[in-house]
């Protein structure tokens, strides 16, 4: 049993139609009911919910505050490599992009880490492309071992791995894995990922199952907005989350909302998602699920981030660089995408405090596992 057996019972087109068919009455029901279903979620992400955005935002704010209090988690990405064997039409690291490739050595990783420590970080997210020869499980194991003494919380956003590989990496202190499906549109997934291991739709789709079976503490899901209809993709994300929460009940979940950003060699987004629509989606997720962590990155603008933190978000990155060596080792290496909010972690922490949020740098300890 995996998510595939659930996924295969849904049709993209029928799902999309059912979302767009939701009415104001459906939205009002979804707002009133105390326990919301996936059908309610469809109503909340539908065009019919647009006029109810302020009400959704207020509910989302209240629910988030009750569960997470007046706190905001801080994390930062640490790009280890931009080597990649995949062709992805939207990504700066794509194989067909003729740029110089860079993979950090242990010494370089420590130099980068020292900068992040100086800024106050205890939670780092390790990011790589997919290059199994040079950046395989051995490399990741070594990287985690190098960083474990320096950070309380180690997360990873790398290629999908086997269950046994995740188990090896968890032994090294890996707490969280993010794996985004990019899109649940099976046919168009192939168009966006024409070559490389990533072109295997089902292997990626079943990655969260393998993580759950390995007993990972936390996993992050999401899609890349700009590839396909965001409402339909978000419904599938919610469906996936619902399945995972039941199947792997000891795992914590987080969701991210990356919107396609300009990058080297990139295609134009097929679908634009407005700020208003992103707010609608974030609030809808909170109304569906009071416990899930919602994360926002520096892809978004300062103005948007300053406001969105009150509407359901529970974790935020700051000062991010999306290129390997970007903090100190080689600031000019190729980045995965351009960031929009260039403020320092200290500036973001000050902004959070001004809005009545306590920035939380440490919320995990290796002693707990």
């Amino acid at each position, binding site marked *: 049993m995996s998510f595939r057996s659930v996924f295969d019972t849904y049709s993209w087109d029928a799902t999309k139609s059912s979302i767009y068919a939701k009415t104001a009455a459906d939205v009002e029901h979804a707002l009133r009911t105390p326990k919301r279903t996936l059908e309610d979620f469809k109503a909340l992400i539908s065009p019919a919910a647009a006029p109810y955005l302020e009400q959704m935002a207020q509910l989302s704010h209240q629910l988030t505050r009750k569960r997470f*209090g007046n706190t905001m988690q801080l994390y930062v990405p640490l790009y280890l490599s931009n080597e990649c064997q995949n062709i992805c039409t939207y990504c700066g690291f794509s194989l067909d992009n003729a740029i110089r490739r860079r993979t950090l050595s242990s010494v370089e990783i420590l130099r980068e880490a020292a900068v992040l420590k100086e800024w106050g970080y205890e939670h780092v997210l390790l990011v790589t492309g997919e290059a199994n020869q040079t950046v395989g499980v051995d490399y990741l194991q070594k990287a985690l071992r190098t960083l474990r003494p320096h950070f*309380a919380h180690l997360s990873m956003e790398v290629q999908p791995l086997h269950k046994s590989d995740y188990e090896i990496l968890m032994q090294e202190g890996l707490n969280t894995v993010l794996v985004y499906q990019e899109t649940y549109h099976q046919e168009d997934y192939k168009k966006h990922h024409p070559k490389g291991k990533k072109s295997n739709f089902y292997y990626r789709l079943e990655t969260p199952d393998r993580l759950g079976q390995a007993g990972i503490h936390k996993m992050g899901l999401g899609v890349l907005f700009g590839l396909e209809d965001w409402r339909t993709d978000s419904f599938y994300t919610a469906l996936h989350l619902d399945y995972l929460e039941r199947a792997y009940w000891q795992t914590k979940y987080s969701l991210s909302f990356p919107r396609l950003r300009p990058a080297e060699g990139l295609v134009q987004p097929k679908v634009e998602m407005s700020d208003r629509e992103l707010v609608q989606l974030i609030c809808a997720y909170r109304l569906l699920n009071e*416990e899930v962590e919602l994360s926002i990155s520096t892809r978004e603008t300062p103005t948007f981030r300053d406001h969105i933190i009150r509407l359901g978000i529970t974790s935020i990155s700051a000062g991010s660089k999306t290129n390997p060596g970007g903090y100190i080792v080689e600031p000019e290496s190729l980045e995965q995408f351009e960031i929009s909010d260039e403020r320092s972690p200290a500036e973001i922490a000050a902004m959070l405090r001004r809005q009545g949020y306590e920035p939380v740098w*440490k919320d*995990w*300890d290796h*002693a*707990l596992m």
Partner: protein
Amino acid sequence: MTSQPLVIADRQFSSRLFTGTGKFSSTALMEEALLASGSELVTVALKRVDVADAEDDLLRHLGHEQFQLLPNTSGVRTAREAVFAAQLAREALETNWLKLEIHPDPKYLLPDPVETLKAAEELVKQGFVVLPYIHADPVLCKRLEEAGVAAVMPLGAPIGSNKGLLTREFLEIIIGQSRIPVVVDAGIGAPSHAAAAMELGADAVLVNTAIAVAGQPVAMAQAFRLAVEAGRIAYEARLAEPVAHASASSPLTAFLD
């Protein structure tokens, strides 16, 4: 009018309001609210503090003589992990007091009774003053009491839910048969809930979210202090039983007169 002091293990408490340290908008505000609450036992998550850092922000704001720290194991999923975390907490925070929390379910944070009992047995052997967070399960409370824990901490409702004493029937049984202090933990969302728990005969309550997330946490901390005191005094003064109707005559026993 002062109520009787509470004794847990070798320590006497004049306040029966225990507090938590999560969810406050700043550590300074947390400190002010905890001082206003009069609380003498303050739980702190091991995962939130940097035990290697002598200047840890959270710990710095808890450095008052009246606060006994109660490290908790929030985040662990098994007895084995809990015992390891407890040992680290004891060494780092220099206290053998421990709030044992094993909630493998990160969604509702409901405690695992099997792992909790296992861990409690081991930790008691290792000399910890163990206060386990558990479901309002009377049998489990007796088992933990036999294992030698210092108090039991049954929940009133899911943690952070502010729903009050949803487990009231079971809390009454637990309080009725316990030989160690009973601290109602989790779910207390309003001072009236805290007062109700104290009127039932709970020895103390633990409150966090309801204070931290209130519009004015310091004022809310004072309100909880007063409610807990009032509830305790009411309990000690023996509440009059509610009566549904007046009883004027004794039709069944009048013939004896």
